[in-house]
């Protein structure tokens, strides 16, 4: 029987299978950041152990950094201490750090691919659930807890039970105005916020093949939002072209050797999946979430479900709780609703293509006067590209300021927060209660739908603004 791409990579990384238990899985690349690493560093020190393979670790500061005045000392003392702790730990243990002010600094899931660190066939972990992003390159990438960060420090391995594998096939062409973010929001709305728990998800089909690497990253990024351990897309010419020439990409003869290996990374025609789902790309509309988990999504022209569409009493209670939090009524439509904030950023949508999409909509126009904005590039490199392509001038002319790189209002750890009770049209990945600040009401959308809201101050069907 044939193997899935997931099986091929997994099997190559199993050091040992513990009887009646998990596998000891070897990790090729470990990405760390300031928030989920300090306790792992102190843990390893308490054991009197050393980092086993420090040169397979790359660190950055992203979650807890300001997005303005990064050249100044961090004002929040707790944040400053956490970022300083990372600097100290990396120095002490010989870990490469791209900290604030470094040209490679940025959101960990933006810089990994950007620098060519992320490559097909690898196992990649990070103490962050959106590590699934890197699966877009045909790697097994998943988020881990801090105890597991310590395991990788100690032995370059984690203990994992092999998940089941699901394949989601997306065939056909997308409507004009529909992008990869809409694909993944559509899938999560279809299968729910827990629909892929226990699975690793492979995305395949002509609609996936047609996507750029950055668009594929957006899809794999949100795999965790349906509970999946990770997402994976088999590498192809688009993948190789993206990686080639990046700072950490293989060079010369080594490149040829790697390429030969990478071309073996696909699911065999007779590979068996534990579950397969087929989706027609043409059916996907621009999507928006209305509730407090990413599974509560609908077409931007759709209506919030009605009470009688839910039978289970606990579910009904939860649905009511979500609508009360969001200030919405069952059965209402969202189109035309006024929004107070737009956030464009996060490891889901903060790459150069996202900024190009937004710029294409706002070019020559003014933002709506009452909309407050947080526009945050994913990395220093993205910020540099924005300037190089002159996109910054389009934003400035529209009355929009561009911030400095970081996770920002995606999780509201720094001062970039959405005020209580206000709506935020957001290109990020989570609409949980309080995620963007206590009481903030998040609605997840694509960069295009966010751009439309920048101009109108309302929930808008981007398709009506395109030719």
């Amino acid at each position, binding site marked *: 029987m044939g193997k899935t791409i997931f099986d091929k990579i997994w099997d190559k*990384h199993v*050091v*040992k299978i*513990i*009887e*009646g*238990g*998990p596998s*000891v899985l*070897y990790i090729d690349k470990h990405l760390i950041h300031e*928030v*989920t690493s*300090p*306790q792992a560093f*102190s*843990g390893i020190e308490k*054991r009197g*152990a050393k980092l*086993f393979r420090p040169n397979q670790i790359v660190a950055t500061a992203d*979650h*807890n950094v300001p997005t303005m005045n990064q050249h100044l000392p961090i004002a*929040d003392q707790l944040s400053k201490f*956490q970022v300083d*702790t990372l600097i100290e730990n990396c120095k002490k243990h010989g870990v490469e750090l791209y900290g604030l002010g470094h040209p490679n600094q940025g959101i960990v899931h933006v810089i990994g691919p950007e620098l060519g660190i992320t490559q097909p066939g690898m196992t990649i972990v990070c*103490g*962050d*659930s959106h590590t699934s992003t890197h699966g877009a390159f045909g790697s097994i990438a998943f*988020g*881990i*807890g*801090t*105890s*597991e960060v310590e*395991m990788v420090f*100690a*032995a370059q*391995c984690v*203990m994992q*039970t092999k*998940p089941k594998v699901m394949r989601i096939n997306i065939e056909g062409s997308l409507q004009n105005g529909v992008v990869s973010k809409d694909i993944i929001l559509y899938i999560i709305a279809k299968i729910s*916020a*827990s629909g892929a*728990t226990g699975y690793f998800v492979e995305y395949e089909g002509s609609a996936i093949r047609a996507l750029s690497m950055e668009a594929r990253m957006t899809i794999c990024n949100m795999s965790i939002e349906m509970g999946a*351990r990770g997402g994976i897309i088999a590498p192809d010419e688009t993948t190789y072209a993206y990686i080639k020439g990046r700072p950490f990409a293989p060079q010369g003869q080594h490149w040829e050797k790697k390429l030969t290996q990478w071309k073996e990374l696909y699911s065999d025609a007779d590979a068996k999946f534990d579950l397969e789902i087929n989706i027609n790309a043409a059916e996907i509309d621009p999507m928006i979430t209305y509730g407090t*988990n990413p*599974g509560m999504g609908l077409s931007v022209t759709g209506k919030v479900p009605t009470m009688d569409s839910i039978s289970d009493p*606990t*579910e009904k*209670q*939860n649905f009511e*709780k979500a609508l009360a939090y969001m200030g919405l009524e069952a059965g209402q439509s969202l189109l035309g609703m006024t929004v107070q904030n737009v956030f464009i950023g996060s490891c889901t949508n903060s790459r150069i293509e996202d900024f190009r999409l937004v710029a294409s909509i706002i070019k020559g126009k003014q933002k709506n006067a009452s909309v407050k904005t947080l526009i945050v590039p994913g990395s220093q490199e993205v910020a540099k590209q924005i300037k190089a392509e002159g996109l910054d001038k389009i934003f400035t002319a529209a009355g929009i300021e561009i911030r400095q790189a970081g996770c920002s209002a995606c*999780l*509201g*750890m720094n001062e970039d927060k959405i005020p209580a009770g206000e709506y935020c049209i957001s290109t990020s990945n*989570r609409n*949980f*209660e*309080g*995620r963007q600040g*206590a009481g903030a009401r998040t609605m997840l959308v694509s960069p295009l739908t966010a751009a439309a809201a920048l101009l109108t101050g309302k929930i808008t069907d981007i398709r009506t603004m395109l030719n």
Partner: protein
Amino acid sequence: MQSLQKIKSRFIPLRIENVDTDQIIPARFLKATTKEGFGKNLFRDWRYENDDESKPKADFVLNQKQFSGEILVAAKNFGCGSSREHAAWSIQDYGFKVVVSSFFADIFKNNALNNGVLPVTVSDAFLQAIFAEGADATLSIDLEKQTITIDRTGASESFEINAYKKTCMLNGYDDIDYLLSMKEEIEQFELNHNK
């Protein structure tokens, strides 16, 4: 890691589905560099009005005096979202030793196990039976036998846990000790892997 064999305790019923780790411990509390003291901020924004400890929300179960115990019982898909292990630390620091649900998110389940907090997955029907019990009811969990029992009715169900993790929990062993003992094997593996 703390070991766990058996526990008999009252429980706190949290009838909310899809409890994400942002609710368990909001991001603003992740600035710490140690594992201690997260319990006081467990479910912070569900517990207090406007982040004010002098204004507990009467409708939230942790504030209802009739409920107590070392077992948290929650509706399905508990611990989804962010991988922050701070969620497991806050549950443990608050005093819970066991979390019962009909469905756990993967990363949370691992994080809990790695901190000596036992996640017990029960059927939907059994979960509803627990929720139907009064505040004085107790649950008994026997990890060796892998059973959970509602003491008043004697209703019992068995739960899954892999043999390795069970041994770790029963004895308070952790994965890092195990991996450290495997170093030579891992070095051997690397010789082939990096070819």
